[in-house]
């Protein structure tokens, strides 16, 4: 299940989940930024928890729930609190790291709804950004924590 809808495809055994999402599921927001599981641009939620989809085989995700940034907004386009916060705080510039950064942030707040700034920074250690210097990304996550993720529109439930 990807963003709440079943996606089925016959794939090579070695197909990485990130490429399954980008090709078979047609969801290109999730990006590939490195080849050593370092940058986090490929971060999605697997059964509600953040994972780096470049280091998960599509086969390993068979039968499970994947959420990408395209699945966060509500059916009528209502932005998820994290998306709202990233916009309000200018937490993105070129946007390439953003889908992974947003998903990592959603997972972070689910596990720690009221993080300190230090906990936010530590929680995003696996996500690189070259444009923002992280300052506004941290503000965005703290702002979203303030608002509360609640039962956000469009999120797949574990």
């Amino acid at each position, binding site marked *: 299940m990807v963003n709440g809808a079943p996606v089925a495809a016959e794939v090579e055994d*070695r197909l990485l989940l990130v490429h399954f999402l980008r090709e078979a599921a047609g969801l290109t927001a999730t990006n590939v930024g490195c080849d050593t599981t370092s*940058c986090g641009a490929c971060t999605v939620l697997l059964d509600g928890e953040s994972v780096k989809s470049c280091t998960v085989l599509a086969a390993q995700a068979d039968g499970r729930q994947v959420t990408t940034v395209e699945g966060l907004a509500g059916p009528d386009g209502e932005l998820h609190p994290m998306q709202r916060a990233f916009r309000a705080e200018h937490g993105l510039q070129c946007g*390439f790291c953003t889908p992974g950064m947003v998903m990592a942030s959603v997972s972070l707040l689910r596990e720690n709804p009221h993080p300190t700034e230090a906990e936010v920074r530590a929680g995003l250690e696996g996500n690189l950004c070259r444009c923002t*210097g992280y300052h506004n990304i941290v503000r965005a996550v703290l702002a979203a924590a303030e608002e509360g993720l609640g039962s956000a529109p469009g999120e797949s439930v574990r």
Partner: protein
Amino acid sequence: MSILGTRVVRTEDPRLLTQGGVYTDDLRIPELDGAARITFVHSPIAHARITGIDTGAALASPGVVAVLTAADMDDIPAGDGRPTAEPLLAADRVRYVGEAVAIVVTEQGYQGEDAAELVSVDYDPLPAVVDFDDALAGGTLLFDGTDSNVIRTGGEPAPPGAFDGCEVVVQRTFPNQRLAPLPLEGRAAAARWADGRLTLWASTQNAQLARDALAAAVGLDAAAVRVVAPDVGGGFGAKIATDRDTIIVAWAAKHLGRPVRWVETRNENLLGMVHGRAQRHTITIGGNRDGRILAYHLDIVQDAGAYPRGATFLPGLTQLMASGVYDLAYCGSAFRSVLTSTMPIGAYRGAGRPEATAAIERAVDLFAAEIGMDPAEIRRRNVVAPEAFPYTTPSGAVYDTGDYAAALEAVLDGAGYKELREEQARRRARGGPVQLGLGLATYVEITAGDGGGETARVVVDATGAVTVYTGSSPHGQGHQTAFAMLVTDQLGIPMDKITVIHGDTDQVPTGIGTFGSRSLQLGGTAVHQATIQVKDQAREVAAAMIEASETDLELDTATGIWQVRGDPDTALSWAEVAAQAGPAGLAADVEFRADSPTFPFGAHLAVVEVDTQTGKATLIRHVTVDDAGTVLNPVLAEGQRHGGIAQGAAQALLEEMRYDPEGNPLTSTLADYAAITATELPSFELLAMETPTSVNELGVKGIGEAGTIGATPAVHNAVIDAVAHLGVRHIDMPATPQRVWAAISEAKGSA
């Protein structure tokens, strides 16, 4: 109230946050249906003759459409015949690890890597030259037909007597290390040859320049080439125009008669995208014990890498900005650019100016340490006075406006410098392992220094909507929002009815693009001027429609309504006026060329803690003034400053592209190349200062690179300051834990 200068969130973001940007590898368009995938074969050896390429096994690999080498590229113009000319695909010689030797074309992406491994290239190794002094000595000449590895020189050594009359002279040699620009989106391209036209989609900062470069490279008229920059995931100077691998992809589409696409891996990006910086500096600084600096000379050795690219012009920029913010009786510089068996050097965020600032800011601190003066005080005593502008430097740069002393005082005040020094003294007295360091940088930099102009076309159509066509090419800077603000401010048309088009040479045939922090001052001014011209046209049309005189007409920018002053019955909407103007609506084209570049300036203060037992430095505060003139949108300006500070701090503390003596890269993945993360940075403290320029009517200078330029020397100086009381005068960048520990140990040893 004008929208200019107010905080406006970006119009770009809803799409980026909900659907993601459409970067080159995301394109799913009919023109690229059935596109084959390209995978490069790169040289694994730094210097060798190619004695044979066997493609047989690769051709038999599943899904392979073609394997192409230099031998197949006889359908394009030959190179310029210079001895140091750089080929597209290497023909008989490879000169750096990562140089492109062949391409494998496959039906699917995964097949490409399998097939590329099967291309068998015979290399006859040649000696590699990596060390600067070896390269300069020329024992091994890297190109036949040359008598030196030095490709360009400039400037002069200090004349005899330049430092006479200085009570104190300090000299030191240190690196400004090689960096990887590392945009999060690497290089990517897709191309199609159809109906006599070559279309290239590429991750570029300059679609128009890329079109011209591609047309020349493959021997086509510019009119037969279209370049489209989709969303671009960062550039930082490394994606200016286009690079050879992208041209090869475009050529392959024409050669094969089939659309193709390519996206590089991070490893390929670290090895094959231009590197930045890579200078070695010898500073000589002299002055008197009262703190007056009299003379400064900067000698630069620029690593060119394997071919002459950026190294031909970057040190010239370093020379231009060598004297920084200081008023010096003598300032001179000289450079030599020298070839080595490594990745060529190109522009990277600051492009020659961070190097100048880093050198002189380190030199000033070394001089201050020698005479026992506080680094803030020595800067106070030597910066150019505010009354001296426009100020001509010894290198001939004319600084437009600036107040360096005010920037310095603002940062000292904002950071609580006095209290920080007291805390530092307390910690030193206690002698505990974690010590405090304070580092300063006062800087000036040159923006829009390329001397080119920028284009804008503004169209109001019969629905009252606006389309702006700009030669600027944003890749994260938020120009869509900024330029829309300029239009809405003048015309009163709401931002959600303003579309900004960029990066497509069919829609914007003329333009220069985005680099060198030029876009707001050049592209923005062009948009502003075109908007005013459209407004003037509208006034004329509206006046005729109402049969009133133009002087009685006014535009209410809050509502976008034209009417005779005080007579609402004459109200006209933009839609009505534009419809009346003709089928094309109202339109104006401007090419704006400024008379001179502009010179943003500022001061950074970095506060670090250094664990003197392990050598690890942590940046705990970073306070800045970055004055780039009038601020159009503080949200965007702050974002640029934040990003710049992070990259600057990264150079001081962590990042370095390294090669071993044989030219093998040692930092070829993100596990080894230490890109800075959120955990290593604090939140930044940005202070506001706006000293407008008179060079353009908006009063704006460029902000994109300033943060980087100020941050590197501030953080670097802070780490050294933290252990200065232990006898340390200098630590080379990056000030890694091992380097700091080694410096402390050495100082202890010679105590």
